[in-house]
C-alpha cells in the first residue's frame, strides 16, 4: 500500500500569497516578504524578527544618518556658506520644483484659449495686487530689523576693530623706531671693526624676526576683524529671504500676466490676422501704387501668421526635463554598448582565438576614463556634423515622437557614445564568460542533432549565457549612469550634469543645496535602473545568485 502524503489544500488565499511572494522575489524586494507572510499569519514570531531586521534597522540607520548630517553639516563653514542640512536641501528641492512649475505655467499660459486666459489673468492680477501690500509690509519690517541690528552689528564689530587699529598703530611706530635706531648705529659702523659689524648684522636679523612676528599677530587680529564684518544676524537673513521670495513671485506674475495677455499666442495670432486682413485689403482695393510691394507684404503677412499660429514659448530647460533627457541619453548609449558588446562577447566566448585577438583591446581601453574619451568623441562627432541643424540624422530624429522634444544634437550624441564606450566592457566580458562556460554536453547534443550555426546560437548558446549577459548589462547600465553625469558636465549637453554645472557656476546661496538635491535624484534614479535590470536578470535565470542588493 502506498503511504498517503498530506498536501495542504491550495486555497485561493494561498495561491495569492505564493504569487505575491514570487513577484517580490523576482523584483528583488525581499524585505517585503516577511510583511506578506505576516499578513498570511505564517509563523508571526519569525516574521516580526525579519521585519525588524530588514525594515526597521535600515530605517533607523537612515534616520541616524539624517541626524548626524543635520548635526555635523553646520559645523563646516565654506566660502559658499555652511554645508546644507537635510532641511535646507529639502527647501532647495522645493525651489527647483517651483522654478519648473513657473516656467511650465508660462508655457501653458502662452497656449491657453481666451476663456481660460481671462480667468487665470484675473487670478494673477488679484495676486499681484495682494503682493503690493505684502511687499510694503515686508520692506517696513526689514528696515525696522536692520535699524535694530545696526547697533548690534556695530557693537559686535567695534572691539575687534579697535584692537586691530590700536595694535597696527603701535607696531608701525615700533617698527619705525627700531629702524631709526638701527640707522643711527649704522652711521657709527664706518669707524668700527669686524666684530662690531658682525654684531650689527645680528641686530638686523633680530629686527626682521620681530617685524615678522608682529605681522603675524596683526594678521590674526585682522582675521577676527574681517570675520566680524561678515556677520549677518539670522533675523536680517530671514527678512531678506522673505523679501526675495515675494520679489521673485512678483517677477514671475508680471511675466505670467503678460503671457496671458498681449504676449499670448492667441493675441499674437489676432494681431497677425488683422495685419494680414489690412494688407490684403490694401492690395485688393488699391487703384494704383506699387502692387509688387503690396503683394509682397501680403505674402509676408501670411507667412508671419503661419509661424505665429504654431509658435511656442521658448521655455528654459528645467530639472525634470533635463532628467528625462539624461535618461534618454543613457539608454541611447546603453543600446549602442549592448549592440556592440553582446555580439563581440558571443564571438569571444565561442572562439578562444578571437578572444585572444580581442584581449589587448579590452585590457587597453577598459581603464580609460570618460573624461578622456569625451573631448575626442566630441571632435570626431563634430567632424561628421559641420552643420548640425541641417544634418540628416538630426533632421530625422526631429520627427521621432518623443525624441524631438529633447533636441538631439552633437553634444547629446557625444555624451551617449562616451557612455557606450565606458560601459560596454562589463557586458562584453560577462557575455564571453557566459558563452565560454556552456556545458560541453549541450554542444555535443547540438552536434548529434546536426543543428546549424544559427539554430545552435539561438537554441543553446544565448539561452544558457543569458543570465550572465544580463548580469553584465546590469553593471553596464550602472556604469553608464555614473559616466553620463560626468560627460554632461564636460560637454554642457542639456541634462543632469548641465544642471549641476550651472548651479556650481551660479554660486548663489541656493546652489550649494541644489547640488545636494541632485545627489539624491541621481541616486534614486540609479537605484530604479538597477531594480529594473534585476527584474530582467531574475526573469531569465533559474538560480537566485547575483540579486542580493
Amino acid at each position, binding site marked *: 500500500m502506498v503511504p498517503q502524503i498530506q498536501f495542504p489544500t491550495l486555497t485561493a488565499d494561498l495561491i495569492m500569497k505564493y504569487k505575491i511572494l514570487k513577484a517580490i522575489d523576482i523584483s528583488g524586494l525581499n524585505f517585503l516578504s516577511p510583511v506578506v507572510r505576516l499578513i498570511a499569519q505564517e509563523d508571526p514570531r519569525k516574521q516580526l524578527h525579519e521585519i525588524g531586521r530588514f525594515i526597521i534597522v535600515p530605517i533607523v540607520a537612515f534616520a541616524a544618518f539624517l541626524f548626524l548630517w543635520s548635526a555635523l553639516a553646520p559645523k563646516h563653514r565654506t566660502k559658499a556658506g555652511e554645508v546644507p542640512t537635510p532641511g535646507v536641501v529639502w527647501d532647495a528641492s522645493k525651489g527647483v520644483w517651483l522654478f519648473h512649475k513657473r516656467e511650465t505655467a508660462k508655457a501653458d499660459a502662452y497656449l491657453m484659449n481666451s476663456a481660460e486666459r481671462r480667468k487665470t489673468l484675473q487670478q494673477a492680477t488679484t495676486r499681484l495686487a495682494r503682493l503690493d501690500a505684502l511687499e510694503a509690509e515686508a520692506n517696513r519690517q526689514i528696515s525696522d530689523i536692520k535699524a535694530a541690528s545696526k547697533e548690534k552689528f556695530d557693537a559686535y564689530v567695534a572691539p575687534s576693530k579697535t584692537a586691530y587699529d590700536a595694535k597696527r598703530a603701535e607696531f608701525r611706530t615700533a617698527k619705525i623706531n627700531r629702524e631709526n635706531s638701527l640707522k643711527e648705529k649704522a652711521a657709527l659702523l664706518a669707524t668700527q671693526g669686524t666684530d662690531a659689524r658682525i654684531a650689527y648684522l645680528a641686530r638686523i636679523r633680530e629686527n626682521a624676526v620681530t617685524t615678522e612676528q608682529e605681522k603675524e599677530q596683526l594678521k590674526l587680529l585682522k582675521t577676527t576683524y574681517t570675520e566680524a564684518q561678515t556677520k549677518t544676524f539670522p533675523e536680517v537673513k530671514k527678512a531678506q529671504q522673505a523679501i526675495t521670495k515675494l520679489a521673485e513671485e512678483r517677477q514671475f506674475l508680471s*511675466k505670467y500676466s503678460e503671457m496671458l495677455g*498681449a504676449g499670448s499666442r492667441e493675441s499674437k495670432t489676432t494681431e497677425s490676422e488683422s495685419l494680414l486682413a489690412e494688407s490684403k485689403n490694401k492690395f485688393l482695393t488699391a487703384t494704383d501704387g506699387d502692387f509688387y510691394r503690396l503683394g509682397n507684404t501680403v505674402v509676408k503677412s501670411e507667412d508671419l501668421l503661419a509661424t505665429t499660429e504654431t509658435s511656442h514659448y521658448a521655455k528654459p530647460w528645467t530639472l525634470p526635463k533635463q532628467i528625462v533627457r539624461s535618461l534618454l541619453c543613457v539608454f541611447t548609449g546603453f543600446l549602442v554598448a549592448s549592440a556592440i558588446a553582446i555580439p563581440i562577447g558571443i564571438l569571444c566566448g565561442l572562439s578562444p582565438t578571437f578572444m585572444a585577438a580581442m584581449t589587448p583591446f579590452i585590457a587597453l581601453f577598459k581603464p580609460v576614463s570618460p573624461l578622456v574619451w569625451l573631448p575626442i568623441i566630441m571632435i570626431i562627432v563634430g567632424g561628421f556634423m559641420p552643420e548640425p541643424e541641417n544634418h540628416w540624422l538630426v533632421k530625422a530624429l526631429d520627427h521621432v515622437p518623443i525624441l524631438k522634444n529633447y533636441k538631439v544634437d552633437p553634444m547629446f550624441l557625444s555624451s551617449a557614445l562616451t557612455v557606450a564606450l565606458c560601459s560596454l566592457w562589463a557586458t562584453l566580458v560577462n557575455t564571453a564568460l557566459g558563452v565560454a562556460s556552456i556545458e560541453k554536453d549541450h554542444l555535443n547534443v547540438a552536434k548529434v542533432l546536426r543543428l546549424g550555426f544559427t539554430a545552435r546560437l539561438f537554441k543553446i548558446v544565448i539561452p544558457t549565457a543569458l543570465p550572465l549577459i544580463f548580469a553584465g548589462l546590469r553593471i553596464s547600465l550602472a556604469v553608464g549612469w555614473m559616466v553620463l553625469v560626468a560627460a554632461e558636465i564636460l560637454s554642457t549637453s542639456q541634462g543632469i550634469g548641465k544642471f549641476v554645472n550651472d548651479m556650481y557656476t551660479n554660486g548663489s546661496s*541656493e546652489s550649494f543645496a541644489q547640488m545636494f538635491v541632485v545627489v539624491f535624484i541621481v541616486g534614486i534614479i540609479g537605484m530604479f535602473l538597477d531594480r529594473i535590470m534585476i527584474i530582467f536578470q531574475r526573469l531569465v535565470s533559474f538560480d537566485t545568485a547575483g540579486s542580493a542588493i
Partner: protein
Amino acid sequence: MRITSILFTAAIISGLAHAEKLAVEKDELKLGFIKLTDCAPIVIAKEKGFFDDEGLSVEVIAQSNWKVLLDNVITGNIDGAHMLSGQPIAATIGIGTKAEVVTPFTMDMNGNGVTVSNSVWEQMQENDPDLDSDKPTHPISSASLKPIVDDMLAEGKKLQLGMVFPVSTHNYQLRYWLAASEIHPGFYSESDVAGRTDAEVELSVTPPPQMPATLEAGTISGYCVGEPWNQQAIAKGIGVPVTTSYDIWKNNPEKVFGVTRKFADENPLTLLALTKALIRAGKWLDETDSSGKLTNREEACRILSQPNYVGADYDIIKNSMTGTFMFQKTDVRDMPDFNVFFKYDCTYPWYSDGVWFLTQMRRWGQISEAKPASWYAEIAKKVYLPGVYMKAAKMLVEEGELTAAELPKTEDGYKPATKDFIDGNEYDGKKPIEYLNSFKIGIKDEGALSGK
C-alpha cells in the same frame, strides 16, 4: 472680459504701430551667453518681450566658457552670442579659431574689475600704507604690486594672475594696468601662444564663473573678470577688488553681440530684428528718472538672478548693477557708470573700438607681423557693422521707440581721440601705429607704416 478686450485692443493698436513687421528669415533662434551681468541686454530683450515684438522666439542658453561659446557660434549650434569684443576680431584675423564673425551691436561699456587675493592685498597695503584704510584713494595703480612681483622673481617664482580668454578685454585691461606701472605681462609669439615671453607675471585663462574658486584654491593670486565675480569674491571673503576697468579706461567698450558672417548674409532681416530688440533692451536698462537714478536696474537684477540666467544672489548682482561697487566691506562706492548699456552711444559698433583691440593684439604680439595703418581700418570695417545698427535704430525712431536725439552722431564711425586712461596716454583710432609706439612696454612698429 473687460481686461482681455482691453488687452486685445492694445495688441491691435500696437500691431498697427508696428505695421512694417520684418519678415525674418529664421524665427526660432538660440542665443548663447556667459554667466556675467553684462549679458543683460540679451536676457532683458527676451524677458521684456522685445524679441517677441520682432516676431522672434529666442532660447537663451548658458555656455560654460568663451572657447565653447565661440565654437558653438561657428559650428552653428547657436545662432549668435554675447561675446568678448576681441573675439569677432580675433576669429576674423585668425588668432585661435579662424572664422568670420561680425557684430552689429556693442552690448555695454565698463563692468570689469581686478581682484587680488587677501594675502596679496595685505602685501600691497604694506608696500603702500595709504591703502590700509577703510576707504583708500582711487584709482589704485599696480605700483604697490610691483615690489611683490619683484620679490617673487628674486625667489625664482612668478605671480600668477587669471583672465578669461587670450583675446578678452580683461586680458588687455589687466596687461594695461600692469604695464602702466612697468610690470611686464609678457609677449605672445608664434611659438609662445601662452603669452609669457619676457613676462614678470604669468597670466592664465580661467572661465569667469570659476574665478573665485580658483583664487580661493590659490592657483592664481588675482584676476580680471566681469561681474558678479568680483563682488562674489568680496562677499565670500575670498579676495579684494582693487580697481575696475572704468579706472583703467573710462568708458571702455566691453562685450559685443556676435554672429557669423554666414548668418548675417543669409539672414539680414533676422539680424536687423535682433539688433532692434537689443537696442531697446539697452535703452530699457539705462532708463533713469528725473533725479538720474537708474529705474529699471533692480528689476533687471531680479531677472538676472534667476538660475537659468546669471543665477548669483540678487544682492550680489545688485552691488554692481545699481550704480555702486563694493571694494571692501567698508568701502561701497557710487559708480553710476560701472555698467553702461545705452548712454554715451555705447551700443553703436564703433570702428575705433575695433582698432583699439587690434592695437593691443599687436602690442602684445598676438598679431605677429607689422601691419600698416590701413589694415587696422580695413579689419574694423570687416567686423563691425554700423550700417545694420543705424538701419535698426532708424526703424526704432520711426516706431517711436527711440528719439532722433538718441541716434549716434558720427560721420566715419570713429570716436574722437581720448586721454581717459589710467596712464593718461592718448588714443586716436585713426593713428594706430603712433599709438603703438607711444607705449613704454610693448611691441613697436616702424613709423613709416602709419602713412600706408
